[in-house]
């Protein structure tokens, strides 16, 4: 589904990603763990196309029904239309824009870009109501302005709600667990797990092993200093939690 080769990226002239390679198969969930400053968030932003992140080398290929495309050639919204979804670490509040209006515009923009019919108001509302229930998102929040005045947990649930409606091929969850209490974490994780499927791949970026008890990954990667230094199964996360990053960093001789 996603093939990243030799990815180099810098911010303000500082190299952050230094030759990152990663292959994510369709239907798989990969976790990326790493210490602060390793480049986890940079990776999520480079994948989604945020401005200010300069890619100096490498390719990012995404499989689509029309064949593989290089995300680096595409605008932010084109990537979304190709099926990329980023669940933000810090979802942005947008006063004055209702959650539902926004989401319907997003969904129809994507459908239009794909040459599909736009959903009518009634069709959309039916879909939105059903998806909101899966993440226990109170219906009042649907009508409120996007993330405006939402609690931390509500913002993250809103991200997963949007993901459920937009049905991406590649979902990137950037520290979706940060700042959540255990109840909120459970709800968010269940929402994510419900979205696992053979045609959807997920990249779960996290700082804490705890999340991976709830969203059990197929593969765990350790990102240190801009590169994947170790890859293993879910037990790698436990090992990291026990030993810390220093040992892995030394073993990788960085």
């Amino acid at each position: 589904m996603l093939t990243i080769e030799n990815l180099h990226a810098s911010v303000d002239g500082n190299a952050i990603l230094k030759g990152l390679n990663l292959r994510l198969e369709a239907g798989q969930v990969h976790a990326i763990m790493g210490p602060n400053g390793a480049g986890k968030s940079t990776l999520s932003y480079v994948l989604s196309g945020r401005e200010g992140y300069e890619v100096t080398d490498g390719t990012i290929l995404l499989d689509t029904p029309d064949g593989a495309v290089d995300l680096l050639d595409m605008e932010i919204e084109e990537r979304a239309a190709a099926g990329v979804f980023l669940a933000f670490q810090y979802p942005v509040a947008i006063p004055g824009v209702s959650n539902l209006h926004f989401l319907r515009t997003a969904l129809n923009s994507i459908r239009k870009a794909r040459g599909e019919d736009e959903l009518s108001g009634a069709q959309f509302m039916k879909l939105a109501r059903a998806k909101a229930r899966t993440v226990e998102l109170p219906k009042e929040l649907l009508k409120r302005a996007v993330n405006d005045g939402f609690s931390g947990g509500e913002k993250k649930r809103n991200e997963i709600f949007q993901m459920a409606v937009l049905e991406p091929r590649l979902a990137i969850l950037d520290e979706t667990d940060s700042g959540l209490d255990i109840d909120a974490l459970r709800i968010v994780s269940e929402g994510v797990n419900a979205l696992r499927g053979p045609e959807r791949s997920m990249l779960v970026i996290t700082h804490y092993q705890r999340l991976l008890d709830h969203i059990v990954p197929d593969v765990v990667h350790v990102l240190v200093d801009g590169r994947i230094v170790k890859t293993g199964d879910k037990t790698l996360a436990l090992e990291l939690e026990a030993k810390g990053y220093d040992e892995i960093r030394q073993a990788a001789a960085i």
Partner: protein
Amino acid sequence: MALLDTSRTAPGKGVAPLRSAAKAALEASGLPGRKTEAWRFTSVRDLTTADATPAQGGLVVDAAPGVDVHRLQGELPADVAGWLAAVEPTLPNAHFVALNGVLADELVVLHAQGHVVAPVTVTHHGAGEGSVSTPRLLVVLEPNAELTLVERFGGSSKGLTNAVTQVRLGANAGLRHIRVHDVAQASLIGALGVAQERDSRYRSLVVSLGGRLARLDLRVRLEGAGSRCDLDGLYHVDGQDHVDHHLRVEHHAPHATSTQTYRGVLDGRGVAVFDGQAQVTRTGPGAEAHQQNRNLLLSEGARAHTKPHLEIDHDEVVASHGATVGSLDEDALFYLRARGVPREDARTILVHAFLRELLESAPTPLRDELAAALRERLPRGEVTAAMELALDVDEAKGDGIEGDA
């Protein structure tokens, strides 16, 4: 005569007390120039050189049950004269008010009692090219009265409207006052004075849709304890538009509250001036005053001049003031685009939302009309129309989110 020539009065009887007061005032005050602080950023030079003749009428009242409308000339009845005297100290912008007094051919009085359900609309059609219209409106709310007043200022040719509106709110009265300045190639200079007795509420929304010149001087005197005014405004300038809002609130009583919340979007070579003042002096306890002006700049050529200021001389005041001049929030733009919304659509959505927030409290259908007018002024504004229309339709069908889920 020139648009602002003071040597003659209008034909007809005019309004006697206004004329006599105005003549003295005109002799005392000259036309404002660039060195006049309140007119630093707004020039009236074009107005003083153009030829013009006074226009008659041009003010149309669409009244509602519960409101008496009087159109007066010559000498005024005692009660009206009394009301006028009571609101006189609130008037800002002495020179233009005096000019209005000299040229006004009638005084229109709206006198409201009790709860007036339907809104009252006053339409100022503006003067034709080369002429000046001088509408004069007095709005009086008896104690406990409630009214929604919509004042519309239109225009298409290059005339001048020099309008004066005075408002007196009796004890515990409430006025929702919406002014729409949509003057295109015409010029508007408006003075608005409000006097509030105890526990009265004045809630104003001023919407300025560009224009060659749209200037408002709004002064509120909170004379009674527990009175409150909320002054909201929003504006959009593009091309060579020039809008200017000067607000002044004076607290003269304890437990009074005032807020000033103005927002604008500036494009092209448009200019917007905001000068908000709140004066809290010797009022006793419980005063609260807040001011905020936010400007969104969409082009290099646009200019915002903003100056919120508080004048406070004792320490038991809850107060805040702030001003911003900035561009679109890049984080919000990224968020929208990352969800699939194309860049230009995302920009339009954010600009419209920035203005739209202040419209939320306006009564329908006016709110929708104003939202549509703003949308029409924005590039790709139809995007937000499609966005907003879609779910409104659902709700009308009873298929909204409040449904059976």
